[in-house]
């Protein structure tokens, strides 16, 4: 059995999760703290990938990232990197697609914090960054774990956007979900079963792990 599609899927998910964590952390913090009137607009933009058909998101990403676009040509000329039908392009597309799965749990975790705790940290002389890292994040562990794991799992399970932006280039953009689609197309149901069973088992165990962890955390702080 060729494991390359799985390795690609995990590599893509790991990179997306890491990049999104760095980007989404300050953004989620800002959303949780701001009283700006524009907040609902940013929240709606963040949530768009949840409601949009992947083909719509994939289409626009294809338009924006293609070598004919300003962004695509900028990356190609400056760094020699193609943003469509390449692994880098997949990472960029996945970051858009999985953005709400990282931002929303973090934002709701930050919003559930006792604001006096945050103010106590400021009064202790700590900066916003020190407060987020030392006080806010450790006190929203269930939300943090949910954000990281769901983002990872969701990226592994991504299909529509990946197919449109990355195509199916072996060892480059042919991730597990795309490989299964191709196997079904050529009626190789045995391989499709094996690949699909691995995906189902993996997704199930990831979700069980998240729920067990969150249940333990709630028990620990006396909510259950």
């Amino acid at each position, binding site marked *: 059995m060729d494991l390359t599609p799985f390795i690609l899927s995990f590599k893509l998910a790991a990179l997306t999760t890491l990049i999104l964590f760095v980007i989404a952390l300050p953004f989620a913090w800002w959303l949780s703290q701001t009283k700006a009137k524009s907040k609902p607009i940013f929240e709606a933009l963040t949530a768009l990938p949840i409601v949009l058909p992947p083909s719509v998101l994939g289409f626009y990403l294809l338009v924006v990232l293609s070598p004919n676009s300003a962004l695509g040509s900028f990356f190609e000329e400056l760094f020699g990197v193609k943003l469509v039908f390449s692994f880098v392009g997949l990472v960029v597309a996945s970051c858009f697609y999985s953005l709400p799965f990282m931002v929303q749990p973090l934002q709701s975790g930050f919003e559930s914090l006792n604001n*006096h705790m945050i*103010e*106590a940290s400021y*009064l*202790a002389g700590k900066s916003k960054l020190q407060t987020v890292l030392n*006080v806010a994040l450790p006190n929203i562990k269930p939300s943090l774990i949910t954000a990281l794991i769901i983002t990872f799992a969701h990226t592994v399970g991504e299909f529509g956007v990946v197919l449109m932006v990355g195509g199916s280039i072996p060892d480059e953009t042919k991730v597990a979900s795309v490989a299964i689609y191709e196997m079904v197309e050529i009626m190789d149901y045995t391989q499709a079963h094996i690949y699909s069973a691995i995906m189902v088992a993996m997704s199930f165990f990831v979700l069980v792990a998240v729920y067990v962890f969150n249940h333990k955390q709630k028990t620990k702080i006396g909510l259950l």
Partner: protein
Amino acid sequence: MIHIDITKNLHGSEGNMQLFVNTVVKQEAFIVLMGESGSGKTTFLRVLAGLEEAKGSIKVGGVIWLSNDKMLSPQLREIGFVFQDYALFDNMTVEENLLFVNEDKTLAKELLAMTELTALAKRNVQALSGGQKQRVSLCRAMMKKPKLLLMDEPLSALDSAMRSKLQREIKQLHERFGTTTIMVSHDIREAYTLADRVWKMEQGKIVLDGTIDEVLSSYNSGHKVEVLKLQNQKATVCVAGEFLEVEVSESVKVGEYIEVVLNLQTCH
């Protein structure tokens, strides 16, 4: 000396009002700030701490905390703040809560010893009782050796025995560190025990400023209060939001209005 001259528009439960405080506080003073809920007490403390904006000026020992063109951030103000809900860092132990403010382990040990928390130093704060949590909160506030200690009803959620114990500890810490302290309280007995100056706030303004006896004498100027309960010639009345039990003559009945003279004895 602390010079305070601030104004801020507030949108309270009883409509709009203006917080207006213009006063001078002596170094090492212990002020108890009293007043009805919604009179602006908490907002006043938050403005002093830099947690809320206001117009005007605050000058503490020659350092400008607030002026028309400058607002010193809470991080840079030498403030200790004790919240009513403790606001401890739940992910840390008692000791870590203190050392997060200042890494001075000797000071942390001294404070924990003064408040009888030494044995709990390594315990997570979530495992503590309300009284213990408020003592940790008090110690944490003192770790900065603040010029100004602000306390927003720190004892209101505790039982009376714990209140008395913590009142002693607050007084002890105030004297040990020579801090200027402003504490919000509804409890006249607390003011008697702790304050050398009492402010009464109404609609965002300090309407009474003096010693506890001076402030209480203002309540005694012919105001009558209703007798709520009678038992063994002792009447329960409500004065300034505080239920008090006072001795009365036999002829007094429930529902009747009587004049109560507040002094150290009636408040205890």
